[in-house]
Structures are given as structure tokens and as C-alpha cells.
């Protein structure tokens, strides 16, 4: 250690210490900026490439077009094909609707049973098993839908005289619903546990049965939270890719029934962008316009969901 008066040593020590503080602070701040930079990067890249796409295709033709038939790049003609979003959007909505129809009742009833009825040890076993569903990679679900669920639905449909395509909105939606079950059930579970006990006890005190308490007291007061969970689940469903790539049939046509092959926004992003190296034509740039649409849709759903859930929490705090 260098010599000096005690006072000098003191200052040297503390200025070094402050330097470390400042450096660490700056480093940490830089690291948390990465998250912001990621968002900025996503927004900028989507917006810039989408603008380039809209220089080829009129935005109105994109957002309100009913035909999706991109032509492969030809340098001689100016015909790029048609890029109507609506067939993809309806396909996406079909899948998301079916997925919610599967996941919401099962997920919600699971959460109710596990949080209100099940003994502690049963809950401790069943809850993690159901949560396994959330950890399975989506490619596995896609494969399962393609080779098992699709043919099964086709066969079941044939038995009752329905013509169900093996790869369809129904197949993809059903399997995606299974994927979302733990999502709905664990969020609803949290929310049901947040409803004050006093409300439940009050209902019991008035002589209501357990199910009456749940249906008439717990669920109505937990409703905003459950709606929030539902919105988060829907946002996950419309952004899901691999299940629909494998099992939805890849047929971008406006359909009135979910029993036929469809295509979704995510499927078209994959189709338009894989194998393409330079983003020069609308054929590949459209992926970014689709990505932007998807990003905005999921963002709005998430913001709405987070807002509703937060309001719900504040209500009981």
C-alpha cells in the first residue's frame, strides 16, 4: 500500500470505491438496455421491411384483400401476385377460437377443482403433471397433431358422416388447446386464490353449497382476472407457429368451416421467408408485414390482459 496521510488514503479508498460503483451501475444499466434494444430492434426491423413491402403492394390490398396467392419472383413482369391478409387472419382466428374452446373449459375447471376441492396431496401430484403440457416443445405437438390427432379426427368424422380433413383448423386448434390448458389453469388458479377468503366464508355462512359459492361468488369476482388470462392465452395461440405449420394444412383460402385445411399468419411467415436470402421482392418482405400485424395483435392483447389483471389485483388490495 502506498503511504500517505490517513486523510489521503481515505480519499483514495473512497474515490476508488465510488469509481467501482459508477462503473458497475453503468454496466448494469447497459445490460438492462438490451431488453429495450431488442424491442426497438423488433419494431424497427418489422416497420422498415413492412414499409418496403407496402411500396410494392397497396396497404389496402394487403389488409382487406381476400385472396392470398404470392407469385414467385419474376424480374420481367410487375405482377407480384395477391397478398390479401383476410384468409390468413380468418385461419388464425379459427385456430385460436377452437383452441380457446378446448382450453378455457378444461383449464378453468381444472383450476377450480385443484384449488377448491382437491386435497393438498392430490394437488401436489396433479398440478406438475398438467404443467408438463406447457413445457413440451411445440414441434412435438405439431407432430402429434399431424400423425395421430388428424387421422383420428378424419376417421371419427367419417363415422358420423362428416368430411373432416386430416390437417385442418380443427386438428391444429384442438392440439393447441391442449398446449394452452396449463396456461389457463395456472393463471386462473392464482387468480382464484387471490379472491378474499371473507367473500367465500360469507357465502358459506349464508348456506350456499361449495359449487354455488364458486359459481356465484368466486367466479364473478375473479372474472376480470380470468378474462385477462384468456386474452393472454389467445395471444399465445395466434402467435404459435409449429403446430399450425404441421397440422393446419397450409391452404390460404377463406373458409367458412374449421373442418378444412387453412393457413395462418405464422404459417405464411415461415413459408415466405424460409429459403430466401435477400429481401428484395414482396414475396419475402410480406413476412415482415405479417410479422408486424402479428406483433401488434399480440401486443394489444397482452397490454389489455395485463391492464385487466392489474386492475383486478388492485381491487382486492
Amino acid at each position, binding site marked *: 500500500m502506498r503511504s500517505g496521510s490517513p486523510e489521503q488514503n481515505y480519499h483514495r479508498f473512497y474515490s476508488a470505491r465510488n469509481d467501482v460503483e459508477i462503473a458497475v451501475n453503468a454496466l448494469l444499466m447497459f445490460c438492462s438496455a438490451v431488453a429495450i434494444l431488442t424491442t426497438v430492434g423488433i419494431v424497427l426491423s418489422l416497420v422498415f421491411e413492412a414499409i418496403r413491402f407496402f411500396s410494392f403492394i397497396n396497404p389496402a390490398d394487403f389488409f382487406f384483400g381476400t385472396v392470398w396467392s404470392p407469385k414467385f419472383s419474376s424480374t420481367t413482369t410487375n405482377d407480384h401476385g395477391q397478398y390479401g391478409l383476410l384468409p390468413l387472419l380468418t385461419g388464425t382466428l379459427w385456430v385460436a377460437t377452437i383452441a380457446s374452446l378446448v382450453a378455457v373449459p378444461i383449464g378453468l375447471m381444472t383450476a377450480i377443482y385443484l384449488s377448491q376441492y382437491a386435497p393438498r396431496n392430490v394437488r401436489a401430484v396433479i398440478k406438475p403433471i398438467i404443467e408438463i403440457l406447457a413445457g413440451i416443445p411445440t414441434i412435438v405437438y405439431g407432430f402429434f397433431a399431424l400423425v395421430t390427432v388428424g387421422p383420428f379426427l378424419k376417421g371419427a368424422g367419417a363415422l358420423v358422416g362428416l368430411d373432416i380433413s386430416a390437417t385442418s383448423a380443427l386438428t391444429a386448434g384442438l392440439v393447441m388447446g391442449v398446449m394452452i390448458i396449463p396456461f389457463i389453469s395456472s393463471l386462473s388458479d392464482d387468480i382464484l386464490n387471490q379472491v378474499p377468503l371473507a367473500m367465500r366464508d360469507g357465502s358459506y355462512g349464508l348456506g350456499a353449497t361449495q359449487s*354455488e359459492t364458486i359459481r356465484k361468488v368466486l367466479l364473478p369476482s375473479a372474472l376480470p382476472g380470468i378474462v385477462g388470462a384468456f386474452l393472454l392465452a389467445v395471444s399465445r395461440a395466434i402467435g404459435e407457429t409449429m403446430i399450425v405449420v404441421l397440422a393446419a394444412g397450409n391452404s390460404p383460402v377463406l373458409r367458412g368451416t374449421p373442418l378444412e385445411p387453412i393457413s395462418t399468419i405464422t404459417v405464411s411467415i415461415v413459408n415466405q421467408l424460409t429459403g430466401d436470402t435477400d429481401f428484395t421482392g414482396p414475396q419475402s418482405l410480406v413476412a415482415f408485414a405479417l410479422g408486424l400485424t402479428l406483433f401488434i395483435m399480440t401486443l394489444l392483447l397482452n397490454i389489455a390482459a395485463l391492464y385487466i389483471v392489474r386492475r383486478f389485483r388492485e381491487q382486492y388490495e
Partner: protein
Amino acid sequence: MTDLLGTGRKAANERTQLVRAGLRRRHRNEQAFRILGIVAICCALGFVALLFTDVLRKGIPAFHQATLHLDVTYDPTLLNVDPVPERTAGQSDADFNAARLAWQRSVAMLNWNKVVEAALRTVTPAGLEIDSRQLLTIPETNARHVIREAFVANPNLLGRTRSFDLLASANVDNWVKGNIDRELGDAQQQMPAQARALVDGWVADGTITQDFAWGLFTNVDSRAAPASAGLAGAFMGSLYMMLVVIVLAVPIGVASAIYLEEFAPKSRLTDLIEVNINNLAAVPSIVFGLLGAAVFINFFHLPRSAPLVGGLVLTLMTLPTIIIATRAALQGVSPALRQAALGLGASKTQMVFHHVLPVTFPSILTATIIGVAQALGETAPLLLIGMNAFVASVPGSIVDQATALPVQIFLWQGNENRNFFEARTSAAIMVLLGLMILLNAVAIFLRTRLERRA
């Protein structure tokens, strides 16, 4: 409607009956509701069971594969090749290597199929007529490479016989496993009648057995020889990506959680970062793929199909998970610990890094492992940055062309040899799920162990 407010015995009786009937109905409803809950749980559990049994039922057969046990003779009459060049005195290294390479080229030029055919003929029953083209559909097309490489490694084999375990072709494997309807006519069969009869005979006498498919783990993907397609390349690709994720996502994620939780002033900016991270966690994974394609590949011109780019994209995807989990862990640390450290004169940095962070270590570790497991199974963003290219080599670094386990599953499920690759794909899924279960088990084990000690 009876008068509920009436007095007298009759009215009281009616009231009691009404309430009893109502109670019966209400208890029935209670029962029905409870059953509904059990049905929902059974549905969910049933899906888990169905998914796993389906994958196992399809995948387990693929771990054993029809294998030919052949004695291969390196017959000098078939292999007209010069002896391997010896180093002569005074020969330079370059000359010797050139001679050696020329020899290897001449070896590669030989017709190794003749050697394979001769080996197959030695075990073919005398009466059976089969032409060489049909005969050679039985072993997988890589058999000649295996035999040739053994010779290059040991040129003394010339004139001698060595026994080999060679993979049978995908069609033979299907046939032996009974995946092909034996009643179908010749026109619909993949293999000619003589080859089918020959294979049946070989199965009976033990020339073909179902051996454990080590190739599934040690080989790379192959189009020319589908029976030898393996996961080694995809596994290394995934491993490199996970390394990138761990090296980048953990320090950055933990650091930004520390900043937000311990250092950041409560300001609008911090609020913005917080909202931003929550939203980032819910952005569809495919959007991260678009980001990777536009920024990393198109703007920074990083190599396509490289684990580096895949790892970067997955890092950005995993960051929010790690940040959110680390923040939750930091929030759980008692303020008393912080105040005690500060009170003893520790600086804020010392307080965080010496006292708070070590306490949260188990939770951060668990969150990291779970985040990595999630990233391991992600497919969609990798398709957009070219990791679905066919790669027939094990990547040697993070900038080599590579694929990943989930992408390999995607590629195999699309293979036109459906019969063979359905099982292969399921086996690959079993490997992927096995790795994820392993990671999660490690996470749970470490958490319980470290928490007990803490």
C-alpha cells in the same frame, strides 16, 4: 305457488318439503359440478398420457434397427489396387502425403459395391436367383463407405476377411419390423420378391438382427442413406446454441434484473423498461426469428444457419424469462440482509454481489435451466434464419452450418419415406424430451439441494 309466509301446520309442511326438494337439487348440482371438475382433470391428464404413450409407441422401435452381420473378404481380384505407399528414404513430407492421397483416391475409385455384393453372395442360399442390383438394395448405401474406410485405415486387410455389422436399408428395416403389409402385391412393394425372400431367410438364420441403433446418436443426417441418418449434427448444433444462450443470456439477464431491482431509480424510464420486459416475454417466438433474419443476417451479415445466430435469437427470447425470475428471487430477499450489509459499511455493489446475489443463487440457477430448456425446444425462429438447411456434418464451431434437434425433427417428419421416418422422428422427439426432462430434473435437484444448504 304456495304461500311461503303462511302459518299453520300445513304451510310448515309444504315449506319443509320445498326446501328438501331444493336441497336435493342443489346437492345434485354440487355433485355434477364436482364431476365436471374431475372430468376436466382427467381430460388434461389423459392428453399428457396420450401424448407420451403415442411418442413412445412410435419411437421405441426406432432404437433398434435391422443390421446385417457380414463377413467381408477384401478379395485382391476385386480390389485391384497398388500397395499402400511406403515412405522411402529422402522423400519429403509433401511428396509422401501426395502419394498417400493418390493412393486413397485410387482406393475410392474401386468398385466397392462388388465387395459388398460378394459378401452378400456368400450368405445367399444356393438356389436363390437374385441379380446384383436387387441384392444391393438390402444393405444401406453407406455399406461400401464403411468397408472402404476400414480398408483405408488398415490396408493390411487386403486378402483377408473381416466381419462387419452393416445397417440394412430403410425398406428392409420396415419389412423386418412388419411395418409393411406382407399381403400387398409385388407392384406395391418397395422391395422385389427375391430380396424379400432373402431377407426373411437372413432374419431366420441370424444374418439380420435388430441391433441397438447407435447410429441414431453417432451419425449425422443423411439423405442418400436414410437408415444411417442420425442426430449427432443436430445435437452439436443445439449444444452450441445453448452455450451461446448461457454465456449471453445469464449474465445480461441477471445484470439487468439487479439493475432494475436494486439500483434503478423509480422513474418513468424504469417503468417503461419493466412494461417492455413483460411484453417482450409474450412476443411470439416467430417475431424473434424475423428480428434475427432482418438484423443479424441481413444487416450484420452474420452467417446463415450458424449456431451463433440461432443462439443470439434464442438469447433475446430467453432474456425476459431470466430477468423476470431473477427479479422475483431478488424481491424475496429479506430487506434486513440489505440493511445489515449497508449498515456495516458495504457499498451498494458489495451489498448486492456479496450478500444478496448468493442467497438468490438457487432460484437464478433454476430459472436459467428452465429458460435454456425452453430455448432448446424452440423451432420456429430457427426456420427463419436458415437452420433448416440440410447439413451432413457435425458443426465444429459456432459459425459453421448446423441444424438443431427440434429443427431436425421438423425435417425428418417431412421426409417422403414416411414409414421409416415416422419412427425415426418419434425417436428424435424422445431424445429431445429426454434432454428437457433431464434439464428440469437437474433444476429441481439443484434447487432442493442448494435451498436446504442455504
